[in-house]
């Protein structure tokens, strides 16, 4: 970054579309006064790939695999939300065993996602040894996913009216082994993130989202729960097998007795949710009934029914980042949906970025932006526009600024 003459006026700092902290493209424009962020704006659409339009030319079975590819991390969330929308439109009853298997797979995905996020957050503040430790843990979760579904990322396990693969008795030892590994390491993870001085310094009081803002801006998932809003589709609404399981909303006051809505609180919520997910998987294995896996195994028959279906359905699912919703409408003329609307969790967590970032420093951008665990894809350049002159600042540069801030605080 080239040096800038000191002026009293604010200047604008665009970040993205290829983004420093995020894995996917999005563009921010900040109004900066010295090091402080005065205002923030977000530009979206760099990865708008007309997936809904493509989907309206396919049948629901084909869409499942398209939905799975919307996001590499939520590759269970989108198919479940879509399948639920279709099931609601067609009044399909999902067999109870399939509901339990959906929960097991979904919670495993949540563990993967939250642990991955914890590593990214550590990396953003320059704590790379923690990144490798957490991702080592995530590897175990991915190994289990591969063992259960045959794939690590796109699992292809959900189908309309059920699931495609069972969780059998002889798979249980491996599941328990992995869960025990997580339990043994959870304390280590908790200690690293919640007691460490460096983490506290960088995350406490940073990127605050007040409860009022979270409610007004319709924030979802751990982002809203960290601000003290009790909102979790899994608890709010009975779906899949969650109604049978014993668990509750996780807000930061469970651990600390208070809610600040800062980055630290978001770390607490995600960490506790990892523990909750382990518990939910165990409950599922204990309570899982025997029975069918799918309500209609013959796909041509299912598609013929869809062809005659007239109606609309709405499916909600609590993805690792929050509520994910799909809407479908069938007109009874074709097996392609007339309308398919996808709304991923980050869509609702865009607006809350603005109050979170206002008043923070440039070096906090990567951490604060990453703290909502946004799901969009990654890029490498930041440009600083200063009265018509353009300077470029690459990801490494911005990352270096963030790391330097940590060092400065520690000195």
């Amino acid at each position: 970054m080239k040096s800038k003459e000191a002026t009293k006026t604010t200047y604008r700092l665009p970040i993205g579309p290829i983004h420093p902290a995020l894995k996917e493209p999005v563009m921010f424009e900040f109004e900066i006064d010295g090091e402080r962020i005065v205002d923030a704006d977000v530009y979206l659409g760099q990865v708008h790939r007309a997936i809904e339009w493509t989907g309206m030319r396919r049948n629901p079975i084909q869409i499942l695999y398209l939905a799975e590819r919307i996001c590499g991390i939520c590759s269970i969330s989108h198919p479940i939300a879509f399948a639920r929308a279709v099931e609601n439109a067609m009044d399909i009853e999902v067999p109870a065993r399939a509901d339990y298997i959906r929960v097991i797979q979904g919670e495993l995905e949540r563990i993967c996602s939250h642990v991955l996020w914890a590593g990214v957050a550590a990396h953003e503040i320059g704590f790379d040894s923690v990144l490798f430790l957490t991702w080592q843990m995530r590897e175990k979760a991915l190994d289990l996913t591969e063992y259960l579904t045959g794939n690590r990322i796109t699992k292809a396990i959900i189908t309309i009216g059920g699931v495609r693969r069972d969780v059998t008795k002889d798979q249980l030892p491996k599941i328990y082994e992995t869960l025990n590994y997580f339990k043994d390491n959870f304390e280590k993870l908790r200690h690293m993130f919640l007691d460490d001085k460096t983490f506290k310094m960088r995350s406490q009081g940073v990127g605050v989202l007040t409860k009022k803002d979270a409610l007004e801006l319709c924030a979802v998932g751990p982002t809203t729960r960290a601000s003290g809003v009790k909102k979790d589709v899994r608890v709010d609404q009975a779906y899949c097998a969650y109604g049978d399981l014993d668990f509750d909303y996780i807000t930061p006051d469970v651990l600390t007795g208070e809610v600040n809505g800062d980055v630290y609180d978001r770390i607490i919520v995600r960490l506790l949710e990892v523990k909750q997910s382990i518990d939910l998987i165990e409950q599922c294995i204990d309570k899982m009934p025997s029975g069918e896996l799918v309500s209609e195994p013959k796909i041509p028959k299912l598609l013929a029914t869809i062809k005659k279906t007239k109606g609309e359905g709405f499916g909600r699912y609590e993805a690792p980042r929050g509520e994910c919703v799909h809407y479908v409408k069938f007109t009874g003329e074709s097996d392609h949906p007339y309308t398919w609307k996808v709304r991923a969790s980050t869509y609702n967590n865009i607006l809350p970025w603005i109050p979170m970032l206002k008043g923070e420093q440039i070096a906090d951008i990567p951490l604060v932006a990453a703290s909502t665990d946004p799901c969009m894809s990654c890029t490498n350049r930041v440009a600083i526009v200063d009265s018509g002159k353009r300077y470029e600042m690459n990801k490494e540069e911005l990352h270096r600024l963030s790391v330097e801030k940590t060092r400065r605080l520690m000195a």
Partner: protein
Amino acid sequence: MAKGKRLTPEEIVKSFKDEFKTGIKGATIKRRTTGVKKIEFADIWMKIDKSIFKDLVKYLTKLQKYPHLAVVSGNDLGKTIELIYHFSVYYGVPQGEISLNISVELPKSNLTIETICDIIPGALITEREKQEMLGVKIKDIPDGRRLFLSDDFPEGVYPWRKDETGPQKLARNLHEVKK
């Protein structure tokens, strides 16, 4: 979290009908069960007239101070454009949430609807998306810029429309090129 009296789906529909009379054109409650315990969840689908739309959203805040707006979805129905506002109320209580899907039809001759950003500021993103995707005009929207479409995307083309303003012309059917 709402501390007051919590209404059942039937009572919600009834209270809306009492309040807005003929403004409510139709309402259905879909109940489904799930899991071993067969716990129920309810979806309310309501068709309403455009004239009562804003008042109805205001009325929703009486059920819960901050109704959650999941998203607004839209259908091109030929002569009209249907917008469906997917709300939910009573979250924060285990198994207490009720989905409210409110559908408003706008004739293609007059595609305007009022903004609800003053009641639910979080609606901004989805309202901006509806403007560019369906060609609906949101009256008094605080920020009317495009959201997902790039600035060089042609004017007057709306990706979700199924009529002549749809995106068909922009699609390249690669399988046909080689013929």
